[in-house]
């Protein structure tokens, strides 16, 4: 194992911003900042009361990202190497899995773990395990 491209300061700062976001949302309306859940509820607006905050949150998420793009002056700072086929498969597994499990990296990984939820901790261990395993198989075995 070689440590490579480690960016501790920006990682910690970004993490703190995400934590502040989650705390602000709970303070405002008592909701948990779980992105997969928010997307699921936006898809099924008749099933939830007060749908509006979810749209506002997602607009803010895109707005904050746009602001960063403008601030940094970098037109493209992501590299998406997965093939079109892999994107379709990965997207479908992500949507299906987070729906069945009731959360993703934000709802389970950040908010749930911060609330010391055993369920969220177990889910986080679960997706970390298969995430690491999948990358190992794709990069080092095939």
């Amino acid at each position: 194992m070689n440590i490579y491209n480690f960016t501790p300061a920006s990682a910690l700062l970004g993490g703190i911003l995400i934590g502040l976001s989650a705390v602000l949302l709970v303070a405002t309306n008592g909701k948990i900042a779980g992105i997969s859940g928010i997307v699921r509820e936006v898809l099924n607006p008749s099933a939830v009361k007060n749908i509006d905050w979810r749209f506002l949150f997602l607009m803010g998420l895109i707005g904050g990202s746009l602001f960063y793009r403008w601030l940094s002056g970098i037109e493209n700072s992501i590299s998406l190497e997965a093939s079109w086929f892999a994107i379709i498969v990965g997207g479908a597994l992500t949507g299906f899995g987070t729906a069945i499990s009731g959360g993703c990296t934000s709802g389970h990984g950040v908010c749930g773990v911060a609330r010391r939820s055993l369920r969220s901790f177990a889910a986080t261990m679960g997706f970390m395990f298969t995430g690491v395993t999948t990358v190992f198989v794709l990069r080092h075995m095939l």
Partner: protein
Amino acid sequence: MTRIILVVSSGALFGLGLCVSQMVDPAKVLAFLDLTGDWDPSLALVMLGAVGVAAVGFPLVMTLPKPLFGGTFPAPSVSQMDGKLIFGALIFGIGWGVVGFCPGPAIASLVYGSPKSWLFLASMVGGMLAARPLLQRTSS
């Protein structure tokens, strides 16, 4: 009005955090998951920062009688496990490892205009809809 500003600000902080930490970049996430390759531990520090702030902030905020603008605070977490929770998480992890996107960063990445971001999200929505009958059957 204040409520709208606060919710949008919360979303904006989330998006900003994903961009500042570069978690919006799938290559950075995959480099974290690639333990035996050139390993980039950054994601662990993102989680540490976010969980740390939330673990301190949630109990502080919940000392208020109720949220500032309606609703109720989330109920205390339940600890019972079930197969769906674990099975779903394992499936999600495979998708995460294939592309390097989870739902938040996939949405944030739209600002960089790659058609692959849109395709990922469309496919993710398809997966969520496909899970619906399963969820209804098991929850009734």
